[in-house]
Every structure is written in C-alpha cells, then in structure tokens.
C-alpha cells in the first residue's frame, strides 16, 4: 500500500545526505519502522544515492588558459565603485572651475576617440592570438550544403560572404556564408560574439570560417550556424 506521508518522503534525499537535524531524522526513522512502502522507497533512493556517489570526474582535455588570456587581453576590469564615488566627490568640491571642466571634457572626448581606435586594433590582435592558440587541423571540414548532416561540434566551412549585419541589441556582427553569390541556395549564418571579437569579412569575399556548429531553432529563424566564430581565413577578397 502506498504511503501518503509526502512530507517525510520529500526529505529522504536530505536524510541520505545526512543534512537533517536530529529530530527530523528520528521522525523519519520512527515512521520507517512501521511503513514498508517508505522502506522500499528509501531503499531505491539509497541505490540511486550510492550510484551518484560514483559519478566520474573529468578534466578538460586541454588547458584553455592561452585562449582565455588572449580573449581578456582586450578587456580591462571595470573600476570599482568606491573609486568612482571618490572621483565624483572631488569633482563636486570645485564647482567654480567651469573653463577647466570644459577643457577636461574636450580632452576626455579626444582620449575616448583615440581609445576607441586603439581598442578596435586590440580586438583584431585578440582574434589573431585566439587563432594562434587553436589547432585548426582539429576542425571538421563541412560543405555549406551538407551542414544539416554534420554531427561534429568544431567545423570549418568555406564559402562566399553574401551579407554582413550588426545586431542592434548587442552590436555583434554576423554574416551569411553561401556557395554561390548569384543564386539563392543553402547558407550558414556565422556569428562573431564575445569574447572573440574578430573583424567581419567584406561582402563578396571568399573565406574559411572556423567555429562551433549549432542549429538555431528560434521562432523567427531556423537555420544552421557557426556560433561562435573562432577564426576567419580570407581565401580571396
């Protein structure tokens, strides 16, 4: 006969993991003396618990530090809040220096433009460093038309870039890879995302794209993707 003491059954895994206080343990053990159904239930859970304790641990096949370091090289940690607060207070102490402030704002503007240019060059370097850290021979070559049959996670696809677009929300670039620029046919959408900010290839160029193969099955689009793109080799512009 099935037992209705759901309140106690609910705590069986806690009981097996010795995470119950003494009173709760006693309540369960008193109940088990009288209830064969719960004894069977607990025995099954104990078997599952014993098996779960033998779950194997794995180690990554390669050390990813080189790729991670390359990716974060273009990233500076954000200044901590207390420092920002101190700066704001200092600014508030000198309200009369309007001309100096205008000068500083102009200088900061100029620095921001220079930083933005330097940052884009840095991002290109990051892409190169990531490519150097990857073993491109490990990528499985797929034809654009055959991507549907692909089962390998890491792929290389070659084709022409028919269009490049920018995501309005996050600024990520994506481009469409096709076999033939003149005719509609099978395609792969290639997405360039953080942390590997590669420069998008130009429309009309022929490229080899290395990355992770996936199927994007959202309501508004159903297509195969290389996402994220890990490396781009330009065959000809």
């Amino acid at each position, binding site marked *: 006969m099935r037992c209705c003491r759901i309140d106690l*059954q*609910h*705590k*069986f*895994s*806690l009981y*097996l*993991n010795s*995470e119950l206080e003494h009173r709760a343990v006693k309540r369960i053990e008193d109940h088990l003396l009288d209830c064969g159904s719960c004894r069977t239930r607990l025995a*099954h*859970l104990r*078997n*599952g*618990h014993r*098996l*779960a*304790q*033998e*779950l*194997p*641990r*794995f*180690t*990554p*096949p*390669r050390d*990813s*530090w080189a*790729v*991670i*370091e390359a*990716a*974060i090289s273009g*990233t*500076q*940690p*954000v*200044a*901590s809040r207390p420092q920002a607060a101190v700066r704001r207070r200092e600014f508030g102490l000198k309200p009369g220096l309007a001309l100096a402030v205008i000068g500083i704002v102009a200088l900061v503007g100029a620095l921001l433009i220079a930083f933005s240019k330097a940052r884009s060059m840095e991002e290109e370097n990051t892409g190169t460093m990531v490519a150097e850290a990857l073993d491109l021979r490990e990528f499985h070559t797929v034809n654009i038309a055959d991507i549907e049959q692909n*089962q390998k*996670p*890491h792929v290389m696809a070659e084709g022409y870039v028919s269009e490049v677009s920018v995501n309005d929300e996050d600024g990520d670039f994506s481009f469409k890879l096709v076999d033939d620029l003149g005719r509609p046919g099978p395609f792969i959408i290639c997405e360039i995302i*953080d*942390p590997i900010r590669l420069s998008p290839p130009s429309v009309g160029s022929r490229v080899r794209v290395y990355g*992770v193969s*996936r*199927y*994007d*099955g959202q309501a508004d689009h159903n297509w195969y*993707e290389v*996402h*994220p793109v890990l490396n781009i080799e330009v065959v000809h512009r």
Partner: protein
Amino acid sequence: MRIQQSQTESEERETIVSAQGGDRVAFKALYDRYRDRVYNLIFYSLGDELGAEDVLQIVFVKIYRGLPGFRFEASLATWIYRITLNECLNQRRGRSAHHIPFEALLGSDDEMDSEAAADQQQAEGERREIIHRAVMELSPKLRAVVALKYLEELSYEEIASVLQCSQGTVASRLNRALRALEARLRPLRRLL
C-alpha cells in the same frame, strides 16, 4: 582544521581582490583552482565534451569581466557556479543535444567481451561510464543538482543559493534524480 579553512578563505579573498584590480597572475590562480570544477559542471549540464571546452573559455572570460562587481555577498564558488549554469542555459537554448543513447552504449550480448570483463580496471571504468551515461539521460535541471551535490559536495543550502531556488526544490529535484537513476540502472544491478 577550522583555522586552516579560515586561512584558505583569507588567501582566496586576497587573490580575488588582486584579480579584481586586474592582476592577471591572481586571476590565473583562480582559474587553476576552479577550472576542473567548472568544467565538470558544464560537462554534466551540457553533456558534450568538446562543447564544454568552448563554454569553459566563455565562462572564465565572463568571470573576469564580472569579478570587479563581486561583492563577497556569496562565496566565490557559488557565484562562479551561478555564472556557469546561466551560460549553460544560454548554450542549451541554441543547440540541439547530440548524445549516444543509453541502449547503444550497453551494446548487445554478442558484443560483450568476457575477457575484458575480467579485467578489474576496465570493468571499473565501464561501470563509471554506465553511471555517467545514466546521469546524462536525466533532464539538465536534475543533472545540475546531481553534479552540485555529488561532485561539488555542496550543501542543500548552497545548491539553493546557486540555483536561486528554495531548499525544498533542491530536495525534490534530488529525490527525482536519484529515483530515476535507480530505475534506469535497476536492470543492471548485478553488473554494478
């Protein structure tokens, strides 16, 4: 023991503060400390060894970027596991799972090698592989709870904090996971 634990915590805090300031060596120390744990959590959550390596890289870049905002309100491990599982969720949304069916792994009777079964080490490896595969058949939510409990050995309270749910939900998921695991492997009890 207690003093040793407190020393470790204090050392970790110093490392975190240095890493928050952009110290790459300190961040590498955190990477070394958490790499395998994060990898296992990704692996069990996604069920894809090669994909796990890519996600591991993304997770550590996110940790690096988010570290300046870490305020020591939870333990670093809890915070890292939360980032990891959120990223796994993002990855699952965009990919269809490819895994070998459990039945395919067991093979047919004809394929069983009696000599190999006699080899203790191989038998142990096969046993773990069967258990691993059975866990991979669980839903991602149940797998995450099993990995946090049985690999990371977190308490119910800590798991609830990582998953941002109640301890009751953790208990319920773990009950379901263990029952499913036992039911899945019951026919093989004599072998295991």
